[in-house]
């Protein structure tokens, strides 16, 4: 049987599109396709605001970008990956420039860079404050140039076809018609994005349900460092809409209910009128979010119907700077909070934002399963370790998207076509989706109810601070939800654009991912980066300078193992900010 495609990319975000273009450029005769559950330009990358880091300015160096990333990760990243990353990031950003990305410029026409949290130098490229939007549309429009890149728009992948120890394609559901079909390929690249939706309050889009992580995990690929969930310190209450870190990089202040710049109380440096790199408001996200919780405990936050908030103060920046550098922030505040940051304080609170962990890959995006690659937020290479620095993720999508694309192309050239058992596997999956789900009439549990239960369990047990007790409670609640989810109520049995079936599939994916997060968090008895255990408040390099790997054991349960991190040039040290 001839494969439908040489390489199939799951996901049309920055990582997926970059991979597809890399393959098309490498060898136009390769048959590559992108399958995405939304039209590519709707992918979540579109929401990224602040920017993309790449050492490029004359006063900057690759070494410094690497060091900031390593220390930002609390030494949990793989340093060989970081070194490759910092070298290739500026090249990738330049490549995007050549493809038409409207990067903001200096008066003389050169690329402009801005400061970002945890970075010692100004090295974040930006396109006003719609960086992800411009990057994604540039990539998507550029990808149209390569007519050999086929697309399956609005197809939802439900399973990886694995046989004979290698990936041979996927089964997917065409949303418009309800058709279920195998799409075979010699190699598959997972670029399915993050999983913020397992939490109730998140900046992530509705589509970020961790599908890619669940697909890989069920196919026997371990998930790495899942306990590290990044909270962003400044989300708008209720909607969770992100106020980009750039707002603080341009000079915004965080104030508690007394109008006091409280970060100075948390070992993040002294307040200065001008923003200072790696200090105060420009400290790393984990530390800022943790400081918020302490302020809340001291009763110094402001109560609102949507929970406690602090204030982001941009008023002193003035209308002109805000309109030039942060127009989208102003637009979002006006449209969604009905307030004008030029004159008013913006209420903000920490919000789940980014998944450091993901599908375990090597430095070329290869997973332990032959033929399966992963890149972008779905993957864990890892350059982010215990805490991702703002603006490292977009370039990560580019660098490792391209790498995974090239590696998959190389693999596909020598790989065999799919074997005969694929059809049978696909038939089983189709049965599971139709008689087992869409056509079923005996379900009782409401999908929305289960989802709310899961999100609440995650917030209560695996939030900014965790304990063994909270995590055990969460694990038990998730177990119960998993069991109840066996009987999800589906009352829409139609084929055309059945979003209820979609919601059910996404919920199962999220439950598996949520359990992985809890399992990994329970095992790591230390505090590092975004993983803060109140019962183990110190970092413990002796036992835990290692990646957690959550496997699926024979019974389908989550099993945790450890893999040492790769250290090349920067031995573990203390993370200091503001000094």
């Amino acid at each position, binding site marked *: 049987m001839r494969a439908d495609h040489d390489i199939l990319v799951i996901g049309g975000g920055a990582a997926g599109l970059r991979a597809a273009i890399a393959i098309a450029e490498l060898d136009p005769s390769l048959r590559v396709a992108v399958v995405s559950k939304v039209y590519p330009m709707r992918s979540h990358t579109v929401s990224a605001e602040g920017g993309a880091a790449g050492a490029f300015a004359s006063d900057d160096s690759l070494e410094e970008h690497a060091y900031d990333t390593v220390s930002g990760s609390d030494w949990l990243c793989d340093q060989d990956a970081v070194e490759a990353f910092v070298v290739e990031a500026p090249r990738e950003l330049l490549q995007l420039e050549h493809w038409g990305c409207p990067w903001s410029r200096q008066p003389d026409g050169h690329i402009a860079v801005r400061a970002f949290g945890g970075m010692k130098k100004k090295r974040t490229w930006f396109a006003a404050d719609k960086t992800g939007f411009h990057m994604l549309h540039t990539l998507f429009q550029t990808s149209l140039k390569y007519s050999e890149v086929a697309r399956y728009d609005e197809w939802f992948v439900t399973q990886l076809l694995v046989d004979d120890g290698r990936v041979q394609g996927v089964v997917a559901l065409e949303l418009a018609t*309800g058709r279920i*079909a*195998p799409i075979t390929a010699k190699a598959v690249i997972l670029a399915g994005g993050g999983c913020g939706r397992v939490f109730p309050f998140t900046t992530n889009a509705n589509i970020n349900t961790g599908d890619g992580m669940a697909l890989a995990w069920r196919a026997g690929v371990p998930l790495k460092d899942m306990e590290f969930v990044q909270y962003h310190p400044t989300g708008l209450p209720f909607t969770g809409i992100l106020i980009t870190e750039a707002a603080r990089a341009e000079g915004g202040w965080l104030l508690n209910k007394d109008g006091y710049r409280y970060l100075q109380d948390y070992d993040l440096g002294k307040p200065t009128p001008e923003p200072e790199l790696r200090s105060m408001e420009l400290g790393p996200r984990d530390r800022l979010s943790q400081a918020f919780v302490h302020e809340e405990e001291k009763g110094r936050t402001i109560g609102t119907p949507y929970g406690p908030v602090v204030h982001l103060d941009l008023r002193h920046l003035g209308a002109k700077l805000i309109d030039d550098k942060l127009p989208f922030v102003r637009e979002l505040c006006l449209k969604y909070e009905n307030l004008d940051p030029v004159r008013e304080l913006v209420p903000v609170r920490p919000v789940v934002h980014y998944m450091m962990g993901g599908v375990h890959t090597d430095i070329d995006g290869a997973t332990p399963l032959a033929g399966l690659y992963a890149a972008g937020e779905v993957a864990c290479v890892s350059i982010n370790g215990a805490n991702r620095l703002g603006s490292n993720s977009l370039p990560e999508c580019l660098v490792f998207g391209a790498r995974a694309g090239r590696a998959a192309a190389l693999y596909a050239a020598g790989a065999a076509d799919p074997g005969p058992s694929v059809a049978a596997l696909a038939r089983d999956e189709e049965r599971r989706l139709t008689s087992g789900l869409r056509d079923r009439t005996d379900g009782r549990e409401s999908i929305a109810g289960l989802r709310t239960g899961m999100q609440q369990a995650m917030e209560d047990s695996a939030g900014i601070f965790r304990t063994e007790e909270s995590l055990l409670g969460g694990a038990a609640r998730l177990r119960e939800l998993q069991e109840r989810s066996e009987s999800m109520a589906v009352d829409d049995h139609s084929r055309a654009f059945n979003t209820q079936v979609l919601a059910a599939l996404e919920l199962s994916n999220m439950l598996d991912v949520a359990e992985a997060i809890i399992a990994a968090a329970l095992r790591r008895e230390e505090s590092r980066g975004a993983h803060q255990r109140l019962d183990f408040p110190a970092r413990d390099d002796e036992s835990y300078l290692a990646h957690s790997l959550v496997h699926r054991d024979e019974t389908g349960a989550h099993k945790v193992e450890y893999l040492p991190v790769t250290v090349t040039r920067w031995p573990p040290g203390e993370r200091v900010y503001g000094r």
Partner: protein
Amino acid sequence: MSEPAQQTQRPYRPEISRLWWLRRRSYVFFVLRELSSIFVAWSVVFLLLLVRALAQGEAQFRAFLDWAAGPWVVALDVLTLAFLVLHAVTWFNLTPAATVVKLRGRRVPPRAIAGGAYAAWVAVTALVVVLVVTR
């Protein structure tokens, strides 16, 4: 293995009625704007009739003026004037959207372009009035 999409699953394509432009106020306005062209054409015809009468002689000119002062013709011409003003105003308002003028590398603000168009209108009007009315 994938079953063909069921025959019953057809996207719905609504019919568009001939009166689609009554659906929204802005569409009605648009159609009125487009209809102004008829009155532009009528203005030309009227002016040519006037010139022809002038050329033919005093009697024909008088007859033309009498005809033009008749109630139906006056009503039509009032309507014509209204549509011409609509045409002029919409035209000048849209001018800046279609033209980008740059002066020393800076884009002339749209308001200035529209302002220029209105100024030209005033100037032309004044010129014509002066030519016709003053002795």
